């Protein structure tokens, strides 16, 4: 049987991170972009938990993950409020069309 170790978690985390970044850069819909951000945050969370679990660093990492989850929620709340606002003014949430401020 394959022993699930630190490496596997890190690989998953890396994949999640990459997917998140990919999503942020490519998605048109602002909500999807926010999802991408969540993926990045959760990739970090996986790291924290995995390191905490496998490297014997105590529970610090897992606590951190909790903090991050809470913060991600707060961030999402604010983000959605702003996106809502955008929708009111632009009647869409396509972020590549929101480029009035530029050189």
């Amino acid at each position, binding site marked *: 049987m394959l022993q699930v170790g630190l490496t596997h978690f*890190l690989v998953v*985390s890396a994949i999640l*991170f990459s997917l*998140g*970044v990919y999503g*942020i850069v490519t998605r048109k819909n*602002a909500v999807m*972009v*926010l999802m991408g*951000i969540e993926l*990045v*945050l959760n*990739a*970090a*969370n996986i*790291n*924290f938990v*995995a*390191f905490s679990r496998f*490297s*014997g*660093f105590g529970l*610090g*990492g897992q*606590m*951190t993950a909790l*903090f*991050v989850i809470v*913060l991600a929620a*707060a*961030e999402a709340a*604010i*983000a959605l*409020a*702003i*996106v809502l*606002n*955008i929708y*009111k*003014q*632009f009647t869409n949430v396509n*972020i590549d069309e*929101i480029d*009035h*401020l*530029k*050189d």
Partner: protein
Amino acid sequence: MANLYQSLELIKPEIALSIALIVLVTCDLIFHKDKKFIPYIALGGLLITGIFLLANSSVSGFAFIQTDLMGKIGLVAVDSFGTFFKLLVIITSILIVFFSFSSEEIQKITDRIGEYYALLLGMILGMFFLISATDLILIYLSLELMSLSSYVLAGFTKLRDRNSEAALKYLIYGSVSSGLMLFGISLLYGLTGSTNLYVINMMLQSPNANMFTLAFANILILAGIGYKISAAPFHFWTPDVYEGAPITITAYLSVASKAAGFALLIRFIKTTFVSFVDSTGNWQLIQVFDWKSVLIALSILTMTLGNFSAIWQNNIKRMLAFSSIAHAGYLMLGLVVFSNGGLLAILVYFVIYLLMNLGAFLVAMLIANKTGFEDINDYNGLGHTSPFLGIAMVIFLVSLVGLPPTAGFIGKLYLFIALVDAKMLAVAVIALLNSVVSLYYYVRVIKHMYLTAPEKETQAVKPNLHDTILVTVLVIPTLLFGIYFQPLVNWAKNSLEILGLM
């Protein structure tokens, strides 16, 4: 419990701030009709915080000591360096409250004014902890506290499309950056087993970690901090958000948020990567990552990009945004020499930067209030019709260029002294050439105000007493520190202490 009590004693300013925040929010909820007094609560809170800060200025020590770890290492370091930056933040905040009194944009939103100040106080709280934090988790949390408040503030007025756009861009960009930083933190945690900077420092002194991963983590964290201080290439949000946000918030972001970012950067690098400070004040880096080269590259890129882009800007806020990017580049020069001299230069520069940058924003705001102009090309003839604001603007801009006898020169002088002392002459020359380039766009504003004849009669901008005092308060030290900078340097000199292991 003694530990907790001592800790609370040390973070009195933060506590005062928190109380002010709670009082403000409560009042905002209770009083629906008349909210005129709400700003004064904020102001009062800020003043009390300031007083606590001053009272605390000679105190230093760790708060929230984690006894399970070696020695007395805490989550929050209260030291003169932190106090210096906190004072900068408080001064800026107080000025911004006064700015807000003058700002038409802010005065239009009467019903949500409580939220505005609440968010402002929240942001300040975030900055305070960011300045003092010595634990990566606290750093991340306070960074988010500060950022979330500022996202909302950037789009707060909702008067025009661009407010919301600014907020959205700021949000997305900020979230990604902090996400990257968090990922970096998680990697660093994985490499060293701790989130505490001191512990990480110790672990790195005898490195057995994967150097590549460490570099990756460092760069990711740098991306997060670089975004805060708008260092290239993490600066892209800056011009757009500065242009879109209300001018008071733009001014605030350009000074306070940058100050907090710089405090974080300096503290992070100093406590994490410096092994010891030698007798001549040079910081010896732990040989795990070439911070010096990275920072030199970034600072040169930042100032060059900022200056060259600013040449093309017509919107004064956008121009000042690029100017603030350029100044971030200059400020980073103080760090790249890795010495107490460089740190001193940063501190001196920051005080001066605060004065001149806020001053320039203030004048731009007063002009925009009256005429609605944010385009430099519309400034034609303003210097003649509004002599007071004109002269003030000239002084601020000249100071931003860094010419004597304004304070800006002293700031640059200390930076270059630090650079020459470190024998980094090529960097100094590049920086100086950059300051010549900066002349183009700063003087362009002056040119439009004085030299170019207006096509039609220019509306005179007569500042009222409040505004006049506010401008004067910024002009006088800008000139005074240019001629007599001893007190300023003495203050900075006494604020070099960053708590560390040594």
